[in-house]
């Protein structure tokens, strides 16, 4: 399920930090690495997970690969919120009716 994948990708704090840095601007792996105390392979692994979840895209130019976020990847999160944003107010309206019908 794509929703779980997006949440799982963002569940890791380091991966979330990688995502947040890329939200600022597009970067290469080595640019990205300079902000973190982890190895380049580890960064690449996090990027692979983010790409797998549709949160990050790669752009190749010559010998370099650039990474940027794809905001559309957050759609499952927005859907999650939209679902409950619609759900709870409706149910609270029903609660009001139930309260009116209850014994004192």
């Amino acid at each position: 399920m794509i929703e779980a994948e997006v949440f799982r990708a963002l569940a890791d704090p380091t991966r979330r930090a990688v995502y947040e840095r890329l939200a600022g601007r597009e970067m290469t792996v080595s640019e990205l690495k300079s902000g973190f105390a982890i190895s380049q392979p580890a960064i690449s692994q996090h990027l692979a997970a983010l790409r797998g979840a549709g949160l990050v895209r790669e752009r190749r130019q010559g010998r370099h690969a650039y990474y940027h976020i794809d905001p559309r990847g957050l759609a499952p999160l927005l859907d999650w919120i939209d679902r409950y944003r619609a759900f709870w107010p409706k149910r609270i309206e029903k609660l009001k009716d139930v309260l009116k019908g209850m014994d004192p």
Partner: protein
Amino acid sequence: MNHETEPNDATEFVIVECELAEPPAKVWRALTEPTLLASWLMPNDIRPDVGARFTFQAEGDAGGGVIACEVLAAEPPHLLRYSWHGADANRDDPDRVLDSVVTFVLTETANGGTHLRLVHDGFPIGALQSVASATATVASLEVERARRRDRRSPVANVPAQGGLRWVA
């Protein structure tokens, strides 16, 4: 439905607040007696004791399947909090990344009624908040939201912070 536009807490994303004419003790019953709870939320076997596990049988707008819950806090008649392991999360989610938490806070009002504050938060929205804190993302999110709002009937305002807050 009125809208509030003030920034909200970083961790609280889905919030519904309203004034009820009935006192907290009565509202508490509607939140914790299975039959009453079922009549406005979903069929359930709730027991308002900390650590008690119960389920909702989800239907309609709640999706299908079973929502597994555990009572995290129960202070009658003021505070009820339970974990919410959604029906959509049962498959494919062994590490429970889709878990969230529902909290009801009941405060007695001057006229003997209840101010109810419902908060549905937890990991997924926490992550979104964290992600949305990067300004570039907020901008793209707002664009995405606007696009989606055009497609759907508008139900709530979206404050600039990327948080959501509205009043029933």
